[in-house]
């Protein structure tokens, strides 16, 4: 099975290679292969074809060079085995450190058990083979996206980047305050997943939610005003940076506690299933996406929800934005088994790993995972390897991360990569892309102006929206419900 998959992949997916080829293409590039999660991680199970994940077969030697480009001091400095000949022999091992997914000791150890896993777990990957066959027939096109789609993706990612950069500027000018967590570098995941959703599908995020809201359709003005704390914000200034909600676009927040959004997302998926089965709204196939980070994957609520989502076959995709760092805690220091996608099969759902710096790969995986959910086949766990270019929040001095690591990922900027892909494949010209850049700059500037000019919430807004039924404020001293006192919302009645 593994051989055929790899063979297919040579034809199907010209990857977006940044100027430096991805360090461990074995692991990340082909989304189809990565569905066979345990295989993709084991270098020893790869066939002896040229490295399939980079478009240039000659990159094998460059890969080695690449691997030396940086050596993060914090990772286990274990050589990463490369497979160039037969399937089952451990091969020439370069004496360089792995830039990611340290504890390569584990990878070597795992490889021997992976073949067993394949057979045992074949049930969970049967669905993939159909997709693979489909893709094989499409391989003659050799392109993953049309021009319109490409421009849409580019525009969304540039909007996310420009918006976040503007947030940083505004924060340092004092217009934004509190906790602000920026998404620079992770745009491929938001764009790759959310642009495949319908309006009725829902998105649940964490505190790093500005770009999720923007991708889902909340206007930049509304988000910017919310960040400035103005009454025209998407939550009237009552939520803030970490609590972006939109009923219209089905953005369910925005949660400050990590892991808190996952059960809520699972509940939204449960509603979709309930509507279909109990309320008999036969065509309800809404899907929910839950976005969260690597730190969250050690939280109990994550596992509880993996269990229940698989148990009840809920239409949800759990998207892990693994940017390797939870504030200053490296993922490897915090996790016994850092390969998060493996935790999916433990609960009976497919676990997929994908390169989160490559929007087209993310989009392919997302299509399959969202398709599964829509068809009623249950949840999927998708781990996206990504990186945040800025610190955890604007208050984070970001001293613990190795500059070499940052440089490595900065070179794999998803926007630059998509730009290169579009231009190389003649889907768009430089001029088109520059026009989009300019348009987005204007949108963001206009959003700032709008937010600046918007009024702050009036005093009467303080007591509003605490309850949907305002009788919840109880009865006043005169024996009438407080909310019936006209002075109540003016803030002059006694509460």
């Amino acid at each position, binding site marked *: 099975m593994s051989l055929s998959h790899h063979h297919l992949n040579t034809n199907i997916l010209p990857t977006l290679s940044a100027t430096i080829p991805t360090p461990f293409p074995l692991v990340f590039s082909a989304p189809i292969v990565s569905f066979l999660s345990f295989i993709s991680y084991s270098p020893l199970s790869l066939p002896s074809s040229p490295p399939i994940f980079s478009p240039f077969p000659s990159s094998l030697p460059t890969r080695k060079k690449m691997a030396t480009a940086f050596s993060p001091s914090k990772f286990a400095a274990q050589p990463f085995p490369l497979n160039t000949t037969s399937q089952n022999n451990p091969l020439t091992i370069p004496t360089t450190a792995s830039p990611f997914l340290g504890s390569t000791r584990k990878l070597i150890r795992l490889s021997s058990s992976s073949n067993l896993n394949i057979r045992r777990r074949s049930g969970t990957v049967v669905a993939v083979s159909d997709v693979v066959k489909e893709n094989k027939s499409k391989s003659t096109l050799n392109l993953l996206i049309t021009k319109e789609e490409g421009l849409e993706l580019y525009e969304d990612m540039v909007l996310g980047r420009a918006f976040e950069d503007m947030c940083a500027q505004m924060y340092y000018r004092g217009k934004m305050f509190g906790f602000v967590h920026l998404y620079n570098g992770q745009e491929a995941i938001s764009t790759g997943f959310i642009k495949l959703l319908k309006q009725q599908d829902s998105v649940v995020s964490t505190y790093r939610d500005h770009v999720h809201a923007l991708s889902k359709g909340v206007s930049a003005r509304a988000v910017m005003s919310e960040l400035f704390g103005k009454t025209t914000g998407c939550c009237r200034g*009552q939520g*803030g940076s970490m609590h972006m*909600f939109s009923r219209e676009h089905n953005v369910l927040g925005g949660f400050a506690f990590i892991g808190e959004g996952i059960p809520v997302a699972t509940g939204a998926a449960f509603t979709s299933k309930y509507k279909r089965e109990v309320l008999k709204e036969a065509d309800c196939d809404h899907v929910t996406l839950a976005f969260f980070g690597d730190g969250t994957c050690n939280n109990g609520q994550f596992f509880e929800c993996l269990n*229940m989502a698989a148990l009840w076959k809920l239409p949800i995709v759990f998207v892990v934005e693994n940017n390797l760092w939870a504030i200053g805690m490296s993922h490897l220091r915090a996790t016994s088994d850092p390969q998060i996608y493996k935790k999916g099969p433990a609960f009976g759902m497919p676990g997929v790993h994908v390169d989160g710096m490559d929007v087209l790969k993310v989009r392919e995986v997302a299509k399959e995972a969202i398709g599964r959910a829509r068809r009623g086949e249950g949840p999927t766990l998708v781990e996206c390897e990504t990186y945040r270019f800025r610190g955890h929040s604007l208050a984070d001095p970001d001293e613990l991360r190795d500059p070499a690591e940052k440089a490595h990922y900065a070179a794999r900027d998803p926007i630059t990569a998509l730009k290169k892909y579009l231009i190389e494949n003649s889907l768009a010209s430089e001029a088109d892309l520059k026009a989009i850049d300019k348009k987005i700059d204007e949108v963001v500037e206009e959003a700032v102006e709008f937010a600046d000019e918007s009024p702050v919430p009036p005093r009467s807004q303080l007591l*509003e929206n605490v309850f949907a039924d305002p009788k919840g404020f109880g009865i006043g001293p005169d024996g009438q419900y407080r909310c019936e006192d006209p002075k109540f919302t003016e803030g002059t009645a006694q509460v």
Partner: protein
Amino acid sequence: MLAIARQRMLGQSFKKILPAVSVLRSYSSAAKQITVREALNSALDEEMSADPKVFLMGEEVGEYQGAYKITKGLLEKYGPERVLDTPITEAGFTGIGVGAAYYGLKPVVEFMTFNFSMQAIDHIINSAAKSNYMSAGQISVPIVFRGPNGAAAGVGAQHSQCYAAWYASCPGLKVLSPYNSEDARGLLKAAIRDPDPVVFLENELLYGESFPVSDEVLDSSFCLPIGKAKIEREGKDVTITAFSKMVGYALKVSEMLERDGIYAEVINLRSIRPLDRSTINTSVRKTNRLITVEEGFPQHGVGAEICASVVEESFSYLDAPVERIAGADVPMPYAANLERMAVPQVEDIVRAAKRACYRSVPLAATA
């Protein structure tokens, strides 16, 4: 004379807000007796049949017929899609309930006891209570969290805490605590129909007790208003406020005090949040003395809030300091005699009432 006139006027104003109060007060002439368990079961049954969006979720609510048999028969009637047996994952399933409520379904989440809700309190407070505010009214959470609260018999420290004060301090939540069958039915129905998160604190020891109910209570559209306390028994000498099991104690106390010529007014709070300060203060202004009774820990408890409210609004009407009767300031002990000492008993309340009325018995040292 003036007092009588005042009383009649107050009676009129109550009638404006709660027209059925006179009917409900006459429970002694009612036909049927039902247990609190039956009351809750029938309320759930009726609400589930009226609205297909209502569903139950919790540990052992389905095949086991409910850990305390409150949800008996509902699985057979509504099927496993609407009565969900969950794994033992409070944080997870509470969050799932909240997520479903975001979309307009009406979950009734059962905690086997409210002590276990501490594992899910993040979702009750942060995802449910605060959501309507954080989203500026876009997302309301019509969810009910219910289960037994407070001390049972001999269950030890980790199973006996009363959570009324904790939940009642959080804006965005409504906290209800019924006493008898009528309260249980009316308040649970009101809670399920309410568009906001409601914490419904029952009491395990009351489940088996039966109370008389009128036909109106048994009607399927019966609902009690949230935020109104009930005056269980009118009096003129001292006001006793209580909720849940302590209302029963307070009523016994009022009978005992009557023999000594003290007529106590017993207020069944019913709604801890929002607290019916209006009823309490009106009563205190009539009787001039107040005793608050609760089972939970004394510091920052419900009694503390009532005392503060009365001092703020009716200070000049008080003829004696407010007496707070609460559980002992210790984790609940296991030994039967110690447990008896850790929870208010009828004698404690009688002593407090006499202190408030005569000030003849000096304040005993509290634990």
